[in-house]
């Protein structure tokens, strides 16, 4: 009996084996496939848990906040790049004051330094578009290089030289930590110390979530956790539309292909022909022009006269918290700024001074030979006087309502 049963089962197994094995494989495969369907929804790309800073970043934070590192003893990075105001100035000065006595005017507006960890060093991309680089003219290659420059800028922290900076650092309360991390003999090597200072501040900016928190209302909206109001939605539509505001042309508002949240800048440069700002003392000299990208102090871009007048496209995140706009701080409200975009060419007399012969001195902040560099082809500044406005007054208000959703710290 057992023998025949086993032979029967053996026979059955023989017949069934190929087909049975196939069915088993198919069902296992199906189970695996279907269980994948029920997989998790995926974590939020930016979790808000605050991980402790690494030792170099912690040092960077201290350096960032240390006013003793300045000639005046009153200025640190955070003085102008105020963490409480999106790491940008809280006052409405066109350019900040610095120097040993805190009374010297710089020449360019202090931008927010948030979301810069996504920037690259300066280069010309495949299509020849200048991209990347830190500062308004992209002259610093990295956050570290940029962080080191203000210490020896006579209009900013105004140290005589790097040695003076290092001397001050070696007296700082955290000097021991600095030595512990970088070696006891570090302060003896000025260049090495300066380099490590820059790296520490860079690391601080990279690690501290405050510099890239993506906690705006718009971020919540993109993640499906918040709804925009009707006006904000209208503003977003105008912002995106290539025939209306076309803001997204340089200030991308869409998530990247890999799901990364939009930075509202493509880190390129543009020449808007912003009117000259009399508030900047240097502009009292009619021969003085801030030529931006082509006029880097080291002369590296002197061979690109077509880039004179071009300045970095800043991120629009936290733009509603800013008090001054454009590289020369010419405008103090978003309304004025947006109206300038829309009416620069349809009503130039509103923005530029008049010549003695009553013609408009358009693009007065650029020498005549560079007027051709100004962007006059992209919407909305592709108009002529008398053309219809790209955005009406109420549409500008809608866009401003949308821009207000880009401020970090939104709580749904």
């Amino acid at each position: 009996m057992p023998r025949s049963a086993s032979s029967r089962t053996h026979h059955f197994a023989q017949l069934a084996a190929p087909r049975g094995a196939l069915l088993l494989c198919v069902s296992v495969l199906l189970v695996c496939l279907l269980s994948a369907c029920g997989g998790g929804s995926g974590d939020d790309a930016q979790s808000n848990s605050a991980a402790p800073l690494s030792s170099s970043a912690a040092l960077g934070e201290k350096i960032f906040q240390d006013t003793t590192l300045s000639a005046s003893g009153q200025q640190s990075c955070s003085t102008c790049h105020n963490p409480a105001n999106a790491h940008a100035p809280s006052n409405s000065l066109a350019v900040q004051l610095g120097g040993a006595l805190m009374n010297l005017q710089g020449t360019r507006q202090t931008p927010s330094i948030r979301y810069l960890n996504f920037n690259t060093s300066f280069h010309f991309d495949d299509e020849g578009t200048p991209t990347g680089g830190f500062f308004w003219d992209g002259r610093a290659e990295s956050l570290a290089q940029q962080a080191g420059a203000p210490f020896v800028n006579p209009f900013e922290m105004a140290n005589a030289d790097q040695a003076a900076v290092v001397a001050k650092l070696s007296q700082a309360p955290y000097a021991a930590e600095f030595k512990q991390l970088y070696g006891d003999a570090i302060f003896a090597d000025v260049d090495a110390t300066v380099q490590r200072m820059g790296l520490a501040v860079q690391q601080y900016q990279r690690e501290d979530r405050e510099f890239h928190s993506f906690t705006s209302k718009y971020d919540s909206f993109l993640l499906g956790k918040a709804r925009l109001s009707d006006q904000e939605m209208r503003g977003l539509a105008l912002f995106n539309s290539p025939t209306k505001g076309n803001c997204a042309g340089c200030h991308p508002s869409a998530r990247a292909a890999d799901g990364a949240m939009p930075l509202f800048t493509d880190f390129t440069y543009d020449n808007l022909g912003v009117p000259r700002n009399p508030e900047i003392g240097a502009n009292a000299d009619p021969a003085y022009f801030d030529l931006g990208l082509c006029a880097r102090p080291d002369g590296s871009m002197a061979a690109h006269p077509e880039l004179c007048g071009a300045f970095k496209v800043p991120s629009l995140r936290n733009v509603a918290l800013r008090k001054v706009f454009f590289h020369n701080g010419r405008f103090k409200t978003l309304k004025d700024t947006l109206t300038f975009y829309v009416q620069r060419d349809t009503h130039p007399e509103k923005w530029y001074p008049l010549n003695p012969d009553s013609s408009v001195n358009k693009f007065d902040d650029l020498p005549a030979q560079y007027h051709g560099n100004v962007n006059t082809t992209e919407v909305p500044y592709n108009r002529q006087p008398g053309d219809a406005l790209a955005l009406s007054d109420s549409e500008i208000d809608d866009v401003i309502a949308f821009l207000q959703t880009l401020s970090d710290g939104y709580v749904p």
Partner: protein
Amino acid sequence: MKRPALSLAAALAVSQFVPALAHAQSTPTLEELARKVDQLSAELAAVKAQLQQQKTAAATPLPAGSAPAAATAAAPAPAPASSEPATVLTSYGEINYNRPKHSADAQADVRRFVLGYQHRFDDKTQVVTELEVEHGVASASDSGEVEVEQAYIEHQLAPSHALRAGLFLMPVGLLNENHEPTAFYGVERNFVETAIIPTTWREGGLQYVGNFDNGLTAQAGLTTSFDLTKWDAASTEGAESPLASVHQEMSLAKGHDIAVFGAANWRGIPGLLLGGSLFTGNATQGQPGFASARITLWDLHARWTPQRWDLSALYAQGRSSNTAALNAPPVGNPTLIPERFDGWYVQSAYTLWTDGDRALSPFARLERFNTGRRYADLGPGLTPDALPTERVVTVGVNYKLNANVVIKADLQRFKLVGDNNRFDLGLGWSF
């Protein structure tokens, strides 16, 4: 392809021949007879030698060594299966010339160059693959692309039922599975089956294929799905073909969502094909922040070939759910995700002239399609208007040089964009 083999039957023929010949002649001399016998024996020797050669070279099914009486072997050279190559090279190519209204836009293009192979592992299992090069040159700075069009294993479960696993063509419409240039009329593939059904549409997964004795072929399976998170609202790709802009082609494809599809095609009456298909699957692949949305595509098609006519008709419709939520962030951009897109065409061709394998077939086709038939409401002033429906009339001729080579010419007129009106020439082959 087939070696005319000298079967054993030849020996019979010879042996039958001899008595007949001897009978026909009246009084042959002995010398003549002797000469004839010599000649015949020489021929017989030659035949035997050939047979011996065949015996050693041929595979088992040929009963070359068995008794002459059982020489009921099939007629000349039914070469046994094992001498058929296990690996077959396949290929098709399309070289097109388009000349639109503005002749400055005329274009000549090696539209497709496809190489593939099929390899039979055993009597039940084979692999089918196809590699395609589009637009001649593929590199970082050229417009071409190289892609794997098909790569699947087909395993026969039973004589009429098979399973396919891997990357395979979706059984949708009339063109997707049979998209070689010799299989359709006109230089370019029709718009409904490129803009609505994204030919050549392939997904990866598992497919069952069943052929039933009533003429029904049923196909069904589970596959990868589209990726709506790839939708680029700033470009016009989505308006040209919604699904082609979000297909994944199993290239590092997001696999969170599994789609299901089914197709039924009935060919019970010779010359008639009636069929339809349905595909549905989620398409936001579990990406954070993207509301869940489902893409569904279905089609109905018919083809009738009475005598020299070749008539076909097709309707295809695609739908996307939850587009209001997906369209909110890119609102204001030129190309948002449509809620519905569809199209249909009717085509008739007539074989005017044939000569052996050559054939001349004029045809005419009318198609209407809309890649943005309807958009979900986003609020007043924000909801995109439905796109206008394009209508294309194509009139032309296919000239088959032989079953595998076709020369085509046609004229196309576009209702919406008159600038697209064009004259096309095409050369295609397939084997």
